[in-house]
């Protein structure tokens, strides 16, 4: 098992805000060998093409009033798909539910993760290692494997189809990863500042909220966004736990474009997919630009 090495990568990723993505870090350590080769560039471009081609359908179909599953340039560029779906029940309510689920679980997760990570980061007890390994195990647990027992639990507690309960459950599922990341971020905050606060008579909680948390704001931002993105894209959990139309988040309500009348509204499906995907794409760009790249995440993963 990879031993919990204090997050060096995390620290360096966070310590350089505004540092551009991965490539620039290369100049510090392992630089590129020799001059760039055209062969590599061409091969890369071909692979990238394979990755983009499937996505082109999504974009083209959303602007095509007569879209099918074929990728084709729209006969006429139209926004009818977007105007058709911009109704409360089609788009706004599901997106609002998604926002409650993801924002709620991200906020809960961050608060709980800070409280859990603080003793793990600051005090050396013999429970630290076993605890962190348990957390790591929890991170790895396939969510599909625990959904069946969780469903029975929700049935017994009479919590099915409750947005609040689902929010709490999603917060719980993302907590292991969040504790792991938060601990790594917290390790990079020097303890000497808190010691000064303790000398001045601050309690541990006071030191945590007034000194540690403000110092690790960028790290907490990454954790929040990370949990938010995961919850926003989560299909399986709300699919199992929520079933009434007014409670469904966008991930589940997307199925409304199928069935019912036997036909599939391809164009509207594509348009809705784009609206639904847009927030996480923007958040991802925000993380990679402001916080110094996906390496804030992969650094936390290294742990």
């Amino acid at each position, binding site marked *: *098992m*990879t031993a919990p090495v204090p997050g060096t990568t995390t620290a360096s990723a966070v310590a350089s805000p505004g540092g551009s*993505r*991965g490539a620039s870090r*290369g100049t510090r*350590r*392992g*630089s*590129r*060998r*020799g001059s*760039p*080769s055209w062969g*590599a*560039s061409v091969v*890369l*471009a071909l*692979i*990238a093409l*394979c*990755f*983009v*081609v*499937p*996505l*082109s*359908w*999504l974009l083209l*179909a959303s602007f095509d009033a007569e879209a099918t*599953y*074929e*990728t084709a340039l729209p006969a006429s560029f139209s926004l009818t798909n977007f105007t058709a779906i911009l109704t409360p029940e089609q788009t706004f309510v599901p997106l609002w539910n998604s926002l409650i689920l993801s924002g709620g679980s991200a906020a809960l997760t961050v608060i709980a993760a800070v409280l859990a990570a603080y003793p793990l980061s600051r005090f050396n007890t013999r429970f630290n290692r076993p605890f962190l390994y348990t957390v790591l195990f929890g991170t*790895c*647990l*396939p*969510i*599909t*494997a*625990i959904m*069946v*027992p969780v*469903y*029975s639990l929700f049935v017994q507690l009479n919590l099915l189809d409750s947005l609040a309960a689902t929010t709490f459950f999603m917060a719980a599922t993302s907590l292991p990863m969040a504790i792991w990341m938060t601990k790594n971020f917290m390790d990079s905050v020097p303890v000497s500042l808190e010691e000064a606060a303790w000398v001045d008579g601050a309690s541990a909680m006071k030191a945590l909220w007034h000194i540690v948390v403000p110092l690790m704001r960028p790290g907490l931002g990454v954790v929040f966004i990370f949990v938010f993105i995961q919850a926003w*894209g989560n*299909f*399986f959990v709300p699919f*199992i736990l929520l079933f009434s139309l007014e409670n469904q988040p966008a991930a589940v309500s*997307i199925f409304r474009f199928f069935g019912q009348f036997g036909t599939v509204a*391809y164009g509207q499906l594509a348009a809705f*997919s784009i609206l*639904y*995907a847009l927030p*996480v*794409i923007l958040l*991802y760009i925000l993380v990679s630009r402001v916080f110094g790249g*996906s*390496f804030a995440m*992969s650094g936390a*993963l*290294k742990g």
Partner: protein
Amino acid sequence: MFPQSLLLTVVFVLVSAVIGQNFLGLGLALLMRRAHRGVAAVVGVCVVAAWVLPEIVAAFVAYAFFFRDGTLNQLTGFAGLPAVDWLFEHPMLAIILANIWRGTAFSMMVYQAALNDVPSEVTEAAEIDGASGAKSLVFVTVPMIRRSIATNLMLITLQTLAVFTLIYVMTAGGPTNRSTTLPIMAYEEAFRYSDIGYGTAIAVVMLIIGAAFSLAYIRLLRERNPS
């Protein structure tokens, strides 16, 4: 039914994650260091795009791509090949390719970070000693990023083991259970046929498979470690 599902799950994990995502991700990360900076940046965005999308959207996109009248058959049509109903005739191939398409970005980013931490002096020294590119990759670079490889393999294996949405949207386990991996089967048994006990049993088997894979990777990590 269950043995077949188990086999399909193992095939799905091995081919799409351990072989597909892992090697493609490593290959992309290596190529990006040799390619022109601008090209590498654009390629990175293209690969990550599929990964950033919510999984249900990615699943619909993959469905549209492999559908009978979909993009893939349009492309093979241009090449003069007969149309193939991928989702019905080769359901496993379709979901494996879709999972590689969606998940490779993660491995790519892990390996980019790992390769950036390999000091260039080491590979330069190997080259001066006469090691070819392939040799220095296998004997110098790969051992140095061993930890990242093991961690990455563990994470993508467990992620792929749990893939539900992609398969559920693309084939729903069909036709006639030919792509029913364990998560799909657990769902069907527990929620379609209301056999919660059987569904939970399948879930336990999934956990055991995940634990077995994880232990194998930990072994891998230990054995190569100079003690």
